[in-house]
């Protein structure tokens, strides 16, 4: 501590400030995954500003892939160096946690991001526009859809390479989100990954209006939920006098030594705590798309460019569930009698509503959106288990689910007709007759969603339900299994449609993608089968990683 009395007098939130003033040590090595990704994002912005248009695509794809691979290597290096277990620590002046769950989920997010670069960069699916191969993003996003500006941009063969820095910023925010160890970092990380996603949603080359509508809705509702979240943070700060997770947890436990008079008075006031906790929870439940905060999901999943949907559906869920786990297991374990029943309700609602409403969907992307809502419910069942298996089963589930989702949306990008992707289910009839391989791959993903053995979905669901049952949430398991049965109906219906229906006369064609999408789908299939057939290594990994640093 400095000898300056004026600094010593400062207290509370200002301590953060004072520490910074005396040049604290920054753990660059331990922060390297996020630093690499965010640094590369800044460089990518510079590339966008200064590199000639013709060179940008190659530069951006290379830079993104390199940065994400490098960050993934850093995460693996840190985990191998013991930072996930015995060396787990709070870093970055108390703002971030470096522990098993953080590293595990960062690894998953980076892998998802890396694979997504492939679908983002895919340029073989759209027809050649004026001699140039183009991707699935708008040529000139700022132009009015269908207006002269857009036409000229298409004629010039422009593409929006800004998607890559946006992707990197989103991944950077997602890396920080599950690792955030105080409420302010949590909020900032949330905004850092949300804002690029809002933009990405608006960039679809086909059906621009739908895409822009989705983006506006997502932005409005996201801002709305952020307001709740920040209000909840304010209330929690008012209650505990600190935003640090450990600090709040100590106040909740009543284990603070020599509380100041103001704090002592607040500690008795549980209303602040309960309302604050509920609002912060709500902000996170919005991001995972749990009922009743799920309404944005179908519209946004449907409107966003499909590569973005795939990335968002997989990575956002991973990041948000990571943050939710840390909040519930590190900050609020002392409150578990209060939040468990509430989350029970949310989990049951999510499973039931997701599964039932999905039955009558006619659009593949909306179907997958409702399926993601039901899956949010399944994962919540693991979250409320409140035991170590709960953490590890959720980690495993997220790993399994993210690859299945990525793969499924990647397949959706392949099935096309004159208007772009043919997402209406009736167009998928008989797909298995014409393109058996694509249909078979999609069937594997659907079976994994449905939780059929020998796919990763089965192992994940089994682990989550087992943890929930051991955590005393038997009712949740029963509801979960029944909803799975309902959900199996609409997954299998798509398979029946693909393989046992007569092909539609004017049916869509399956585009032959470049190696990028092929790699994405290949990796997703491999992960789905590997985690289904040989899950033990990854289950052990998740169990090892399932300890939070406090």
């Amino acid at each position: 501590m400095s000898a300056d009395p004026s600094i010593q007098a400062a207290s509370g939130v200002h301590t953060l400030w004072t520490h910074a003033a005396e040049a604290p040590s920054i753990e660059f090595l331990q922060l390297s995954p996020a630093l690499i990704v965010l640094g590369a994002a800044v460089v990518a912005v510079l590339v966008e500003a200064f590199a000639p248009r013709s060179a940008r695509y190659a530069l951006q794809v290379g830079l993104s892939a390199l940065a994400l691979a490098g960050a993934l290597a850093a995460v693996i290096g840190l985990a191998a160096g013991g930072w996930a277990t015995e060396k787990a620590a709070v870093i970055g002046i108390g703002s971030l946690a470096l522990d098993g769950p953080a590293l595990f989920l960062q690894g998953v997010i980076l892998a998802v991001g890396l694979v997504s670069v492939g679908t983002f960069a895919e340029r073989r699916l759209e027809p050649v526009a004026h001699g140039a191969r183009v991707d699935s993003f708008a040529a000139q996003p700022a132009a009015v859809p269908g207006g002269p500006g857009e036409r000229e941009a298409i004629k010039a063969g422009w593409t929006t390479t800004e998607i890559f820095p946006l992707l990197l910023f989103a991944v950077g925010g997602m890396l920080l989100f599950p690792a955030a160890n105080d409420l302010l970092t949590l909020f900032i990380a949330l905004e850092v990954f949300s804002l690029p996603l809002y933009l990405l949603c608006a960039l679809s080359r086909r059906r621009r209006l739908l895409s822009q509508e989705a983006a506006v809705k997502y932005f409005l509702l996201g801002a709305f939920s952020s307001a709740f979240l920040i209000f909840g943070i304010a209330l929690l700060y008012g209650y505990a006098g600190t935003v640090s997770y450990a600090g709040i947890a100590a106040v909740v436990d009543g284990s603070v030594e020599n509380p100041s008079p103001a704090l002592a008075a607040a500690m008795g006031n549980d209303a602040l705590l309960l309302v604050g906790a509920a609002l912060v929870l709500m902000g996170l439940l919005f991001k995972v798309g749990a009922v009743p905060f799920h309404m944005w999901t179908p519209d946004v999943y449907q409107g966003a460019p499909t590569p973005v949907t795939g990335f968002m559906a997989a990575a956002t869920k991973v990041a948000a569930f990571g943050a939710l786990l840390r909040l519930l297991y590190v900050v609020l374990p002392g409150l578990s009698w209060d939040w468990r029943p509430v989350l029970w309700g949310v989990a049951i609602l999510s499973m039931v509503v997701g599964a039932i409403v999905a039955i009558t969907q006619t659009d593949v992307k909306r179907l997958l959106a409702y399926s993601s809502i039901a899956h949010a419910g399944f994962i919540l069942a693991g979250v409320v288990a409140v035991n170590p298996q709960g953490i590890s089963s959720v980690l495993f589930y997220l790993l399994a689910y993210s690859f299945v989702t990525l793969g499924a949306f990647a397949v959706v990008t392949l099935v096309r007709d004159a208007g772009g992707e043919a997402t209406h289910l009736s167009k998928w009839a008989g797909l298995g007759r014409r393109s058996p391989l694509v249909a078979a791959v999609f069937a594997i993903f659907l079976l994994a969603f449905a939780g059929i053995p020998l796919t990763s979905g089965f192992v994940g669901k089994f682990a989550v339900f087992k943890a929930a049952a051991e955590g005393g949430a038997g009712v949740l398991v029963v509801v979960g299994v029944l909803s799975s049965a309902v959900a199996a109906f609409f997954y299998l219906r798509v398979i029946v449609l693909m393989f046992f229906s007569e092909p539609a006369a004017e049916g869509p064609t399956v585009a032959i993608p470049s190696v990028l999408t092929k790699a994405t789908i290949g990796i997703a299939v491999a992960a789905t089968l590997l985690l289904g057939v040989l899950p033990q290594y990854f289950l052990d990994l998740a169990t090892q990683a399932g300890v939070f640093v406090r």
Partner: protein
Amino acid sequence: MIGLLVAAPLLGAAVLLCGGRHLNRTGHWLGTALAGVSFVLAAVLFVDMLGRPGDDRALHQHLYSWVPVGGFQADIAFQLDQLSMTFVLLITGVGTLIHLYSVGYMEHDNRRRRFFGYLNLFLAAMLLLVLADNFLLLYVGWEGVGLASYLLIGFWQHKPSAATAAKKAFVVNRVGDAGLAIAIFLMFTTFGTFAFGPVLANAEEATQATLTGIGLMLLLAACGKSAQVPLQSWLGDAMEGPTPVSALIHAATMVTAGVYLITRSGAIFNAAPDAQTAVVVVGAVTLLFGAIIGCAKDDIKKALAGSTMSQIGYMVLAAGLGPIGYAFAIMHLVTHGFFKAGLFLGAGSVMHGMNDEVDMRKYGGLRKYMPVTFVTFGLGYLAIIGFPGLSGFFSKDAIIEAAFAKGGTQGWILGAVTLLGAAITAYYMTRVMLLTFFGEKRWQPDERGNEPHPHESPKTMVIPMVVLAFGSVFAGGLFKFNDAFVNWLRPVTSFEHGHPPIGVAAITTLTVVVLLIGVAAAWLQYGRRPVPVVAPRGSLVTRAARRDLLQDDFNHVVLVRGGEHLTRSLVYVDNKLVDGAVNGTAAAFGGLSGRMRRVQNGFARSYAVSMFGGAALLVAATLLMRAV
């Protein structure tokens, strides 16, 4: 190392079946080479095993566990002990020879690559079956060989008869497979594990009823796979498959899996005498049943199929005798593997030279045209009828002695049945021999007017026949010498010397006498006078035997008709009750879904309201939880 045994043919199957057209020219050699690799590996492991003392010979290898959950442990783990080793050598050895034979036999088939893919798949599954160290993995292999058998019986799928035969084999085998599944369920609930070690070691602790149940279910499984009464009906039809398949799968290896299962589960049967009696009865009945069918068939492969059934009956009978019989069951299994495979390959060679004619009444006098086939087939013939000094003599004689040694009335009955079986065996095999190789030539042009030109087969076919003929001649003596085979298996199967009520010399003499009677009877009927090309009407028994002793008629009347009535009534119940409930539920959910999706109206403002309401509920619920 043990895993490689299975992996080599599995790799071959994968490459050949997924590889595509450019493997058409080399694929068969790849398949043969990989079978050979397995055999070499097996030989190396065998030598390695011989280097260790008797009780220390079993090897274990644990590959990985598939979702170990609580008490449920599904391991991919291998166990290579003397019993498994015996099978592995037989499977890979005979398997390699038959791969080689098929290179010549299937030369003109344009789907030859696929054929070798299936053959490799069969080898992998069969090796998995005998190498598994638990019943669950054994079941995987069990189903795998069933699949390979189905694919190969129906290999010439353009023939409706082949397709039907494949389907029949598959369906009948399902009955047996269900038995195995139930046996495994019972074992798991009783012992809490699938592994051979703990299940067999603790077998005696279970109740008598459970053990009998498990034993009978295992027997059912064995009946299905090994074509024993009452699940025997598929084997004759299975001869629709290419002849190498009949030799490998439906004579030498797969159909003996039932004997393996019973021997492997010996501890269970030893503790359940009732189940053991059932095994003996099934063996004895099948022994005669198959032999009688064998006497009446004019189709050379079907006659041999009847014989296979009958010989496996001997093995099952021996396995049912308990520790006095296990080793002899396996010994007969191995010698049978040699001579029956050799006989089938010989039959294939004859068919190859006779435009694929199978009716023996249209053969005759072939010994001059195919001398090597004649000699190798003849040696196989002498071996199977138990001609003194050849393989079959030692192994069958041992079973007959063990049958007498069962003791009491049972012993006498079983002894008599085995002796009778030996006489009939001599009769029908002599009949096959005389009809095919001796007498006048009775060939006729086929429907397209092609006159057959019998000729010796190519080298790739002849070499395997010669090698197998060596096995048919010497294997039995080698095994019998110093009780080598019994001592080899003793650590696994346990062994007790049986004491027949009459002297061993007397039994051997009796065996030889009935053998001569059988041969003489056949000679009187088929050797002394010319054979009619069109089969005479025959007696009632003959006609019944030609129809496989009415097995299909019985199945049709009892099972098919009964099954039809049952399914009709079930369909009625299903339509009215079950579907009503199911469709009702589905309609209810669909209606609910339609109503609930109306909330999703597309307006951001309504979404925001729902979020606000949700947040309010969340806060209220949290506060309420504290209040109550």
